[in-house]
């Protein structure tokens, strides 16, 4: 083992020493030759017999090395062109590898590049049967699984429609449904969350939990760091075919964002190096998000009312303290900040030993991403001496809503009027 992770955090290794690895990837290399001029016909070859074939070698996967324990939910992240899909195709046994060793224990079901090789001229019914058999079921087993597959995809009414008449979302749903319902021990999932509506995404999340509970080994490729942090036990970060980090999902997600945006994102509260200011004469004990009913939440659908809260304890009497909240998105940009002071809310006096819960209610106009809240308490007055500030203490994953690329989606109405 020559190249393990460059930065294996102490708690990164999954605590499953006894379980034999389900997937072993040993120093795997895979290169593609990219000819400068593609010879596709014999004539071209005959006309230029002595022209040397010049080509670039693209090292798509370069010395990747890891093991995945049985039952592990393993993330593979990286930017476009980092070699994720090639690695997955090698794992799926679609591409041959140049060097190294690959072992997969048990049956493997791949869901790669949003498909499982459907034939567009056939009905959903035929395609499901073909794919289930291709994935290793017998005809009998395929028939037994059929209803589950269709039910999960939610396509009961379109069984006998040819796939070319399906919407792309429907096709992907069906493909994903086949891939996860064939009882494979190892499942490769490539970017399923990028498509499909919120309802289907939620279904996928539920399914991930179910597969995890069932002890399936899952390799999960995505650009969505919030789902990596949510589901993965460990993750690997690839860049230009090389493995640049392997470890705990939160750390990997951070490195991924660093790669993308070239700067450090504020660390989440779980980390050791928590950013904290203030003289602590009042202390923030906790912060959380909750829904309209008051239940604590870690995720929320776009558009729903919600509250962000903090609980604080006073160690000395304070008159009219200023409670503040700052919301940041996944790249660390502040998207909203407010305080009781700015909102002209009088807070009153507090005695030593008293605790308080402060709630800020708003409608969730934030778009799909991960958000953190930084609660703060400060003394009244212009100087605003910080009593306590805890950066990124709680986290919220927002899903659903239109994907506009913007940070927020404000409530709005259009008026189009001719002059």
């Amino acid at each position, binding site marked *: 083992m020559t190249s393990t992770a460059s930065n294996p955090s102490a708690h990164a290794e999954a605590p499953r020493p006894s379980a034999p690895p389900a997937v072993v990837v040993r120093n795997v290399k895979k290169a593609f030759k990219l000819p400068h001029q593609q010879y596709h016909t014999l*004539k071209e070859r005959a006309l230029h017999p002595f022209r040397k074939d010049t080509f670039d070698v693209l090292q798509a996967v370069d010395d990747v090395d890891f093991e995945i324990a049985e039952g592990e939910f393993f993330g593979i992240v990286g930017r476009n062109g980092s070699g994720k899909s090639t690695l997955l195709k090698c794992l799926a*046994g*679609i591409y041959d*590898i140049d060097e190294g060793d690959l072992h997969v224990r*048990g049956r493997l079901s791949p869901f790669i590049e949003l498909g*499982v*090789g459907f034939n567009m001229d056939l009905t959903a019914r035929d395609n499901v049967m*073909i794919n289930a058999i291709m994935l*290793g079921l017998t005809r009998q087993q395929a028939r037994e699984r059929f209803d589950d597959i269709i039910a999960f995809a939610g396509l009961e009414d379109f069984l006998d429609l040819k796939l070319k008449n399906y919407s792309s979302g429907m096709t992907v749903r069906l493909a994903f449904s086949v891939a996860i319902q064939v009882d494979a021990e190892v499942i490769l999932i490539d970017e399923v969350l990028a498509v499909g509506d919120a309802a289907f995404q939620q279904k996928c999340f539920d399914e991930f939990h179910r597969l995890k509970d069932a002890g399936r080994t899952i390799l999960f490729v995505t650009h969505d760091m919030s789902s990596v942090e949510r589901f993965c036990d460990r993750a690997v970060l690839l860049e230009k075919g090389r493995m640049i980090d392997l470890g705990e999902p939160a750390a990997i997600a951070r490195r991924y964002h660093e790669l993308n945006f070239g700067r450090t994102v504020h660390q989440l509260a779980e980390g050791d190096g928590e950013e904290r200011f203030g003289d602590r004469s009042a202390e923030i004990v906790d912060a959380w998000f909750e829904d309209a009913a008051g239940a604590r939440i870690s995720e929320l659908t776009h558009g729903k009312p919600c509250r962000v809260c903090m609980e604080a304890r006073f160690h000395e009497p304070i008159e009219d303290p200023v409670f503040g909240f700052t919301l940041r998105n996944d790249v660390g940009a502040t998207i909203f900040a407010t305080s009781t002071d700015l909102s002209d809310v009088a807070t009153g006096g507090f005695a030593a030993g008293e605790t308080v819960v402060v709630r800020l209610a708003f409608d969730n106009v934030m778009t799909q991403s991960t958000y953190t809240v930084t609660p703060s308490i400060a003394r009244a007055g212009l100087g605003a001496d910080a009593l306590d500030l805890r950066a990124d203490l709680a986290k919220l994953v927002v899903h659903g809503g239109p994907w506009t690329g913007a940070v927020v989606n404000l409530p709005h109405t259009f008026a189009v009027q001719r002059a």
Partner: protein
Amino acid sequence: MSATTVEAKRHAPSAFGDDLRRFWNLTLMLAATDFKVRYFGSVLGYLWSLMRPLLFFGVLYTVFTQVFRFGKGIPHYPVYLLGSIVLWTFFIETTSGCVQCLLTREGLLRKMRFPRLVIPLAVALTALFNLGMNFVAVLAFALISGVELRWTWLELLPLAMLIASLAIGVGTLLSVLYVRFRDIQPIWEVVAQILFYGSPIIYVAAQYAAKGGERVEHVAVMLNPIATILTQVGHAFVDPSLPTAAAAAGGTARLLIPLAIIAAVFALGLWFFNREAPRIAENL
């Protein structure tokens, strides 16, 4: 579930896979799918593929017996013509079908791990099925025409196996070559034309033998495996007065040449396919 929990030693896609039963099931399924896709939506559906050799026969028969008075003196010439056309149709359906078969299955090849050889074999299987259906028509036609039922008809089975081996060998070879060189298709069209006229399909080996004697081109024609097979079919199935393959080739020992060609093409096709199989998906 049959315990497919085998530790995959070599993980790359292969031509044959490691489970013969699964290999066969997949071939069968792909052939069935092919069938469905091809005949779904055309009114007469499957009938068309059965009609094609019959119509072709009708045209050739009319031209060569009514216009050129070609089959005169050949016993049961129409039966011979129909039989050879049906066998030729099988050969051409398999080989031409194989040329682009990997490309049309690109979706599967790029997303799934399965023995690659099932794709060209499914093409051959479909053609073989059609051959079986067509053979029923040939049988009926032969009996109506007064061809005698003889024990030598049993020779048809090994002869069909020979032409199937040849077709599979050529087909697998063409299918992987096409992945690298796209002009395999027009080249094969031309070669097939030459083969068609270079084999006793419209004519019968007896006529050629009468004219040719021991000339080089005669021997060359008679030693092409398709000619050998068709000639023997003529002798064993149509009429015993037609020459045997051995007689047409000018000696039993010479039959080793077409047999060796069939064996070599079959082996070469499978070997080459097996060699290329791990990289088909990325070269497509």
